[in-house]
């Protein structure tokens, strides 16, 4: 019986997020992702230099739609992004994902300068490397990103979320501030690759891109993203340089808005304890994405962080 070993010709780009003092930033550590030349945890056929990492979300406004199951974990820090970030750091995550929701034109519609201030506050409150993402309004996000990039200059952040509509602005901003970019496309492996090509054709290094293939919640399109991630990773290992980027999914965001994580026991007695249900939903989704090849998962519940850290450590043992 000969073992069945795949001989892969390619590997995933390795990307560093965060800059320590030596490299011109103020983070306590750098976080490296990607770099593998094997399918997830199959260390018998390649190297897996970096484990998947876990980011926690920090908003610059109190999230209006969060369930109490989440809110209760954070107490009174939800209206103070700096304190919130500190709390997440204590909860054991690898990265902070700062979501600048306040700039949303449908909400507070704050200015780029306000957002930049928040970025600076969070940077001084936490020593973890940062992901900084906008409010999701493509136009508004691209109008603030240059200033955000400037405010975090030298900290080697991961900026998001660039789309086909605004990638040029994002790439230029990231280039001048020394950051990397999350590039998002709607659930399609070809569009994903096309955006990477367009960005690299304009001179942005493909090694500084993280792919967001869209995140489907468990039971809500999870399987499409799962397969897109698997296919992306297989393409990377087969040597396709435009699909060799690390991958991120926003698991928490898609988990906690589902009915399964919101409906209480009186509405849905057949579904068991609400408190446990949401956490288990977030863990199951995280495991699924990590097994498909995801490199960064962004989650919301501290228990998920703890469980997933254990899980990943266990899997990284050769």
């Amino acid at each position, binding site marked *: 019986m000969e073992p069945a070993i795949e001989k892969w010709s390619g590997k995933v780009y390795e990307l560093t997020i965060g800059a320590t003092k030596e490299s011109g930033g103020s983070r306590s550590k750098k976080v490296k992702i990607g770099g593998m030349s094997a399918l997830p945890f199959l260390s018998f056929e390649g190297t897996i230099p970096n484990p998947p990492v876990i980011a926690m979300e920090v908003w610059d406004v109190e999230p209006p739609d969060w369930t109490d199951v989440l809110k209760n974990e954070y107490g009174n820090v939800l209206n103070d992004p700096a304190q919130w970030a500190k709390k997440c750091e204590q909860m054991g995550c690898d990265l902070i994902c700062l979501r600048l929701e306040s700039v949303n034109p449908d909400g507070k519609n704050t200015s780029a300068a306000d957002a930049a201030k928040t970025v600076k506050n969070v940077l001084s409150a936490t020593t973890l490397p940062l992901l900084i993402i906008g409010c999701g309004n493509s136009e508004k996000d691209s109008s603030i990103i240059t200033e955000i990039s400037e405010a975090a200059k030298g900290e080697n952040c991961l900026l998001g979320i660039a789309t*086909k509509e605004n990638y040029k602005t994002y790439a230029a901003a990231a280039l001048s501030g020394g950051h990397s970019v999350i590039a998002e496309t709607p659930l*399609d*492996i*070809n*569009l994903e*690759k*096309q955006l990477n*090509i*367009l960005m690299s*054709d304009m001179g942005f290094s493909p090694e500084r891109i993280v792919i967001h293939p869209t995140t489907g919640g468990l039971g809500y399109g999870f399987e499409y993203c799962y397969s897109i991630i698997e296919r992306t990773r297989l393409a990377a290992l087969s040597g396709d340089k435009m699909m060799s980027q690390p991958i991120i999914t926003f698991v928490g965001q898609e988990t906690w808005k589902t009915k399964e994580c919101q409906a209480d026991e009186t509405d849905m007695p057949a579904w068991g304890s609400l408190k446990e249900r949401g956490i288990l939903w977030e863990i199951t989704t995280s495991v699924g994405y990590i097994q498909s090849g995801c490199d960064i998962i962004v989650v919301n519940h501290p228990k998920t962080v703890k469980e997933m850290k254990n899980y990943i450590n266990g899997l990284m043992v050769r």
Partner: protein
Amino acid sequence: MSCTIKFLPDEKEIIVDDKTDLLTAAIKAGVSIYSSCGGAGTCGKCKVVVNTGEVETSVSPFVSAEEKAKGYVLACKSFCKTDLEVFVPESSRVGKAEILMRGEKIFIPAGLPAVKKGKSAFFKTGVAVDIGTTTVVVYLVDLDTGELCARAMYNPQVSFGEDVITRMIFAESEDGNRQLHQSLVDGINELMENCAKEKNVFLNNINVLVAAGNTTMTHTLFGLNPSYIRKIPYLPKMDFLPVSSAKKSGIRINEDGVIKALPSVSAYVGGDIVAGVVACALHKSEDLAIFIDLGTNGEIVFGNKEFLVCCSTSAGPCFEGGGIKWGMRAQSGAIESLTISGDNISFNTISNQKPVGICGAGIISIITELLLNGIIDRSGAFVKNSSKNLKSGEEELEFFITDKISITASDIKNVINSKGAVFSGCDVLVKKMGFEFKQLSQVIIAGGLGNALDIKKSIILGLLPDLPIEKFRFIGNASVTGAKMCLLSQEKFNEAKFIAETMTYIDLSTDNEFMNNYTASLFLPHTNLRLFPTVKNIMEK
């Protein structure tokens, strides 16, 4: 209430009631107005100017405030309240293209297999017709000598919609089916009469007409309602259309004459494609070959004498000049090729006439040049400030070839959609059968996009597979060639029947592999550059 409407500049009058929209009124009055959506108010092409009188009309995003002030309305969404005088601007007239078309010499492809005369060629003169979604071509054929006279025109059904689906939708409206049939028959009769006049033939001495068209067109020729074609399961009872009498169909040849249509394979692969296979003899080929019809439906046939599979890719009319701002058929004055160097543009037109528009071959040439000169990126989007000929047009960026003629951002998008559909159709068909492009011995291309079709540029665009140039063969309008062959020989007609029976239709409309491949093809030349090794080399330079 009835009102009299006078249409200018044709000076045609008609009396209609206030329930009849101006588009319908115009069609009834014999004034052709362009309408690609079939009167749904969604294409904005049937703009007319109300000079005098009052109309009831609805708000349309296609009519600007400025135009509104000048009296512009959408004909299909306007109804008379009083007697009217309505001016049909040139941009809304089908007539313009039609005039250009009539009297033009039709390209007759060379190098096709010679037709052996069958025993059943009984009548002295016959007619072969290609009924395209966009164009109708009529050949008058001397059954002894094969001598030809040909005429072409835009399919008069264009007034009811640009593609087969819109026409099927139109056929569901009241009287829609009859109008489709009537306008088509009128058009064929007109072309036949022109030919007959030129050749001094009495139409009464013609006893047979062989038509090749897609399934929808064949249905409307016989007056059958095409809207049933779409219903699942489509019963292929009309695949083998009966021979119909000329009298019953309204075709003005001898009353006792017959109308024969080439049989269809399926709802979306029709007799025109069967005719194409007859013309290029794919069904007798020893080696693997692929036949691509670059028409509105973009049908593809793949196989050899062992097997034939086919599909329809809904490519859209852009290779025939449709759906493109300055697009036109391959006729005099059409830009057919172009080169860009720096800010300088040089181009050729058909018959070296003053440029009036761009034909399919020209469109391919232009977009490829834009890509190679960095004026568009690989997604087909214009790169700002990349050329001084790139300017803001009425609504979007346009690349100006002359002071007037341009190619717009949406034109490019349309072409990319079309070429993506055709290429991925080929790719999926070949892969589904377990083959690769490099195993093809021949790629046969048919269509009315112009003789100047540049294969190399078509490959760079990602329309055609990256194979050595000598494997390609352009045969022009294969549908009418096949129809003519079947007119001259019963043997060929029998072959057509055999092809239609044995060819296997593959439905791509719900095929995931095709969808995936299609999005990959919506890039220049393709998302996967490995499929285009020679283009990769060019791009890297």
